[in-house]
């Protein structure tokens, strides 16, 4: 029976199931972390009442979201409206397939892993665009428009800051990139490419619509931006996707710049998870520290600072490699 099914199919199905579980579990942990960190920064306890130290709060929230009515607003494009959350969450599954969590913990060792991730995370823009357009709501439409211009602008420095790493390693294979870096922090690419690291991290914040670049869902101006009209799991899927993209961004940052699964003692997936979670905590820390940038500031940072800096960094890297 098992012989009839080709091995890659089994591997990918098991991998997808594991990925789904990972995404769900991560979202629960991250929601809890986010709210606890926000609480501590504001000298509050954060979630406290559901379970010991409020640890079951995300479960309660998830159950509430699942139980809510799915409501399509009048005048909305029904098909596109419900397609958008699915388009948002689906690419995240593919992205996790090529991420090397450990030396032996990778579902597909693809030669174009990095390109695959960059391409599939770009699909999210389309999802948010469809969501904003089909909601028949001015806030949603404005949020979608903002998201598109933001994503298009920040994709450029993001790619420009990835390029030096590719030139150094000569590979798009994430496993290769991770294993070429040494075990110690001074052997990681962050020491060779600190500028690229900072630019990549800023762009990752902008691409995942995180504070201080969360203009597409600016609560104070656009109620909730592109997902204003979504209820129940429609919103839940966007939420899940947002946290999944955060995890992907942290994973890619850890692989490209922080040595992936390599650590000073006992390399393995635990080092990778630790790095990813430290990056996620920094993202959360940033969210609760900075106010949102204005839209002109957002584009100025990108076009006037990040892109020229990234180009300069790339040129210097090429020069050093050529010599």
């Amino acid at each position, binding site marked *: 029976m098992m012989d009839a099914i080709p091995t890659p199919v089994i591997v990918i199905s098991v991998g997808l199931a594991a990925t789904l579980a990972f995404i769900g579990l991560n979202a629960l942990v991250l929601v809890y972390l986010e709210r606890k*960190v926000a609480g501590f920064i504001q000298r509050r*306890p954060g979630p406290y009442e559901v379970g010991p130290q409020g640890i079951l709060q995300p479960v309660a929230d998830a159950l509430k979201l699942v139980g809510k009515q799915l409501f399509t607003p009048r005048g909305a494009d029904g098909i596109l409206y419900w397609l958008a959350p699915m388009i948002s969450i689906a690419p995240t599954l593919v992205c996790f397939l090529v991420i090397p969590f450990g030396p032996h913990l990778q579902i597909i060792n693809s030669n174009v892993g990095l390109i695959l991730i960059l391409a599939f995370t770009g699909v999210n823009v389309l999802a948010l665009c469809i969501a904003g357009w089909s909601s028949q709501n001015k806030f949603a439409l404005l949020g979608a428009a903002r998201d598109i211009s933001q994503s298009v602008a920040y994709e450029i420095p993001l790619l420009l800051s990835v390029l030096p790493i590719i030139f150094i390693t000569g590979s798009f294979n994430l496993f290769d990139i991770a294993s070429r870096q040494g075990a110690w922090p001074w052997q990681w690419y962050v020491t060779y490419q600190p500028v690229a690291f900072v630019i990549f991290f800023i762009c990752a914040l902008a691409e995942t619509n995180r504070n201080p670049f969360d203009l597409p869902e600016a609560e104070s101006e656009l109620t909730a931006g592109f997902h204003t009209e979504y209820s129940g799991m429609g919103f839940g899927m966007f939420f899940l996707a947002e946290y999944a993209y955060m995890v992907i961004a942290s994973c890619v940052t850890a692989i490209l710049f922080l040595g992936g699964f390599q650590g000073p003692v006992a390399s393995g997936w635990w080092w990778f998870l630790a790095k990813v979670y430290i990056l996620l905590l920094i993202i959360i*820390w*940033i969210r609760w520290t*900075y106010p949102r940038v204005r839209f002109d500031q957002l584009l100025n940072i990108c076009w006037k*600072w990040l892109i020229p800096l990234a180009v300069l960094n790339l040129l210097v890297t090429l020069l050093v490699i050529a010599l």
Partner: protein
Amino acid sequence: MIVQKFRDTLMGLWSLLVGLKVTAVNFASPEVTVHYPRQVVPSLEGYRGHIELVPSSDNPQKSRCIACNTCVRTCPGACISLTASKPKKKEAESKDSAGSESGEKPKAKKEKPELESFVLDFNYCCLCGLCVQNCPTDALGFSNDVYLAGTGRQDFVFDLLARLQSQSAKTEQ
């Protein structure tokens, strides 16, 4: 010009780090939330709750009130009503009805009017504190009853004299 721009940018980047430090310090500091049903705020001094009668220094059962009615007249919400027994001596001579004049300027021979009831209708109180300010004998103060709750209007009509007596009975125990 360009130097200034770069300096501004560097200062801006530095300010970002300062901001991160501020939140990090607050993250590590102890929380200030009081988990109300399980904990209560330790010090309620300075809390301005509804007014209450201040016990006189010689007898904690009795109020300092001399029934002058100043509070009744100053109250913008007309929520205070008090009754007092008329002075026992010189009763025949006093011609006024309310006893407010006699309360304000008690003569040496006159006995003080006895406070019989002091009712506050807290529903109409705006907590302006004019009664406390204007009381000539400092017989009124703010209570620190933060956890005041009731199920109806009638729960907020307080007999302050009875409250004073029950409180002094409690403290004696």
